[in-house]
């Protein structure tokens, strides 16, 4: 009976895979009792050679060899055809010894190793970033969080990509309602291919109109660890160097990991700088429209005259000017992102220097507008997490629009509107935007040393 089933498995597999060019089948041993089947492309052949092929010649006895294979760490019996094919596709080797067959773990992992954090670079502090390998990422976290309370639950998502997902949390500190929601939402995800953390973030967000990111996507293990101590849930994903942290609050997007390292006063100052940057990048274009066209009387008369003088040659209204220049700036940012490293600097030079200089001389835009656009662009990049940066990039157009229609009243109404909207956002049932200055001590007692 068992003989029948095992040879059945080998035959069934052969039928399934014989068309594949990377399918390989080896017969070992004097009596041809041992058979190996695997896919070359995902299998580490060194492992197979060293631990499967070589011992088969060293051990005289087939029984001893079978016992050796069966007890090898990571090896399991292959008795379910579904599991068998999944294992083979993942990189396992099917070892059939007489009547029995085993799945030997020989998964080959191509990954770039632990690299340096690029998107969230910091001055001091750990430089390592997540890699494309989930095991390695878990290792990075475990090494920083050595307690048995740290729980890792794994699952796979994507009917074709079969991407491994790990839900990581501190059992003692985690908010159970959040954890439950994360699990529920992950279970509800029905997709074919899952390739990046940002994608996953989109799938597990509630399907409503939203403009602010609901979860932090980070490449820094130390950020994940810090958030785990705050009772949050991290979702790690294979094949991408990013992790998702849920829930997120607005201020999370304005904290860099540097803040923990700096002297408290300095880090407070840096935080303040980021919020000032946020305010400037949001309102400056709108304020320019207001001051140039709508309510010039608000500013000091010298300043108004300066703006008007600088705009003297410009033949169209200020909002056109603002839209032109903001669009040019968006093009520049996008272009320098996508361009190969070698020509990237050229584009910025051509765009920034020559275009800006020539445009003012031609009288298409005012000098002040050029200064303003660069100030807006620079202050936008002050925001440490890029997802929030993108949101703010979009949001400032709304303010320009309302400034165009209602002047300073429009700016104020939209700022209050944004505050109100932010207050209404919930991330996994947690308020997204709210002051916790007076509560941090009583309620969130676990956040030791949170700056």
């Amino acid at each position, binding site marked *: 009976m068992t003989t029948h089933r095992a040879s059945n498995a080998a035959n069934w597999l052969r039928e399934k895979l014989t068309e594949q060019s990377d399918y390989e089948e080896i017969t070992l041993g004097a009596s041809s009792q041992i058979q190996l089947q695997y896919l070359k492309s995902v299998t580490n052949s060194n492992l197979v050679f060293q631990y499967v092929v070589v011992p088969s010649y060293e051990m005289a006895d087939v029984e001893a060899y079978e016992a050796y294979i069966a007890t090898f760490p990571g090896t399991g019996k292959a008795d379910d055809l579904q599991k068998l094919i999944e294992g083979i596709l993942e990189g396992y080797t099917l070892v059939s010894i007489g009547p029995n067959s085993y799945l030997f773990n020989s998964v080959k992992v191509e990954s770039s190793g632990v690299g340096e954090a690029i998107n969230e670079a910091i001055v001091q502090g750990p430089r390592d970033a997540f890699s494309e390998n989930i095991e390695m990422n878990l290792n990075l976290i475990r090494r920083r969080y050595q307690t048995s309370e740290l729980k890792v639950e794994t699952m796979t998502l994507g009917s074709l990509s079969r991407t491994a997902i790990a839900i990581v949390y501190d059992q003692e500190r985690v908010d159970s*309602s959040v954890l439950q*929601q994360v699990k529920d939402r992950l279970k509800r995800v029905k997709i074919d291919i899952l390739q990046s953390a940002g994608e996953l973030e989109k799938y597990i967000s*509630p399907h*409503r109109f939203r403009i602010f990111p609901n979860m932090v996507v980070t490449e820094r293990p130390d950020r994940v660890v810090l958030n785990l101590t705050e009772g949050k849930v991290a979702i790690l994903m294979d094949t991408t160097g990013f992790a998702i942290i849920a829930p997120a609050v607005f201020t999370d997007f304005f904290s860099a990991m540097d803040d923990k390292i700096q002297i408290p006063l300095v880090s407070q100052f840096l935080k303040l700088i980021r919020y000032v940057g946020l305010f400037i990048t949001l309102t400056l274009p709108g304020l320019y429209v207001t001051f140039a066209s*709508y*309510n010039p009387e*608000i*500013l*000091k*008369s010298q*300043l108004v005259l300066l703006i008007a003088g600088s705009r003297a040659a410009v033949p169209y209204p200020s909002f056109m000017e603002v839209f032109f220049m903001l669009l040019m700036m968006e093009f520049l940012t996008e272009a320098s992102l996508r361009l190969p490293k070698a020509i990237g600097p050229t584009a910025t030079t051509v765009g920034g220097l020559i275009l800006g200089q020539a445009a003012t001389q031609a009288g298409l835009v005012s000098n002040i507008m050029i200064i303003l656009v660069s100030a807006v662009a620079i202050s936008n990049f002050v925001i440490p997490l890029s997802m929030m940066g993108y949101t703010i990039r979009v949001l400032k157009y709304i303010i320009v629009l*309302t400034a165009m*229609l*209602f*002047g*300073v*009243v*429009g700016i*104020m*109404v*939209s*700022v*209050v*509107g944004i*505050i*109100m*909207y*932010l*207050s*209404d956002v*919930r991330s996994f*049932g*947690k*308020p997204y*935007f*709210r*002051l916790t200055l*007076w*509560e941090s001590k009583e309620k969130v007692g676990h956040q030791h040393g949170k700056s």
Partner: protein
Amino acid sequence: MVSRRYYYYLFLMSAVINIINLVPRVLIFTRFDGVFWSILLAVAYGSLTMYMFTRLIIKFEGQGFPEIFNTYLPKGVVIPLLILYSIFWFVAGSIMLLSFVDITLRFISPDISARAVMTGFLILVVGASRFKTTSILYATEIVLLLSFPAMVFILIKALINPAFNWDSVLQVLTYLWTKPKLVTVTGASFAFTGYVNLAIFNRSFNNLTLKLRHFWLVPVSGLLILLVTLLVPIGYHGSIGVEDHVYSWFSTADSLRMETFIVERVLYLFYITYLSMSLVMVVIYWHVGLELFKGCFNEKEDKKDSGDKETDTGKKSRKNQWIEAILLFTVSASMIYLTERINQVRLAQAGQWFLNLRFFSETFLILLLMFLVWRKRRSARR
């Protein structure tokens, strides 16, 4: 459920907002006619009603008026009551909006159409009054804290200015011993009216307690705010000239100058601070009005629609969405209609009527709550 401090924000918000329109006018109108004793009476009455109202509504933990009324009153009484009070709250917000449109036209953008300004305000207010109750509290805190430095700055700027005429203030002070007037008391006690919003906002509180070591701040800050409201405009415009100004505080702010800042006139700082705060205040009023109105149609189980549960996704039932849409559309349409129709005089008259009616209806509310607490106790004993 939110922390207790939000309760005080509700009070503080409506107290500082007062200086925009109705209250200074009534105070200045009776400045030679017992205004000081009226203020004292109003502070005493206002704090007392605030204290009593809060003590009473704490008994109904986490419940707003619709739930309370529906439980302890017959249906035939509940619906007229809720509709009446809903109208009250909508009128409160509308008067504030209408006066702010007027102020905008007068001080900021004289050449824009009133309807355009009103539409801009309405987009925000209509959108935001449908938000969750707790969300509005969070926004209140943030807007209030952001505005606070500007308010303090303006006040200090006003008081240390050499042009501030203390003699006029002293002159008005000589009318200390005059008999108080009811109209001033009702007007001045409006400064304390923020607590009434607990009618709906009580849904967000479950651990609200009034401690005297916090509560003493209420009469003190109320008294200071009312005195500042009355005396600073007098210091700038003189004891007689002050009555020539419709929006006396805006005229006062316009008398101040920031010599070393890129914005020279304090008026603009004052305007944007008070604009953002009054928009939030209107959102609060209309939210209460909206929820009270919805209460006529829903039994108490539908309470979770206000979205205070932590896991709530903010989805509302189809029926509630329709009620909200129809009601808000009606109110907005009538507001746009009114902006062109109403003039300053009629707005001021309406405001005065509102102040007086509010005084009595709030007293009635407290009596009603006493009755309800009594009924609750009786039903609990059974």
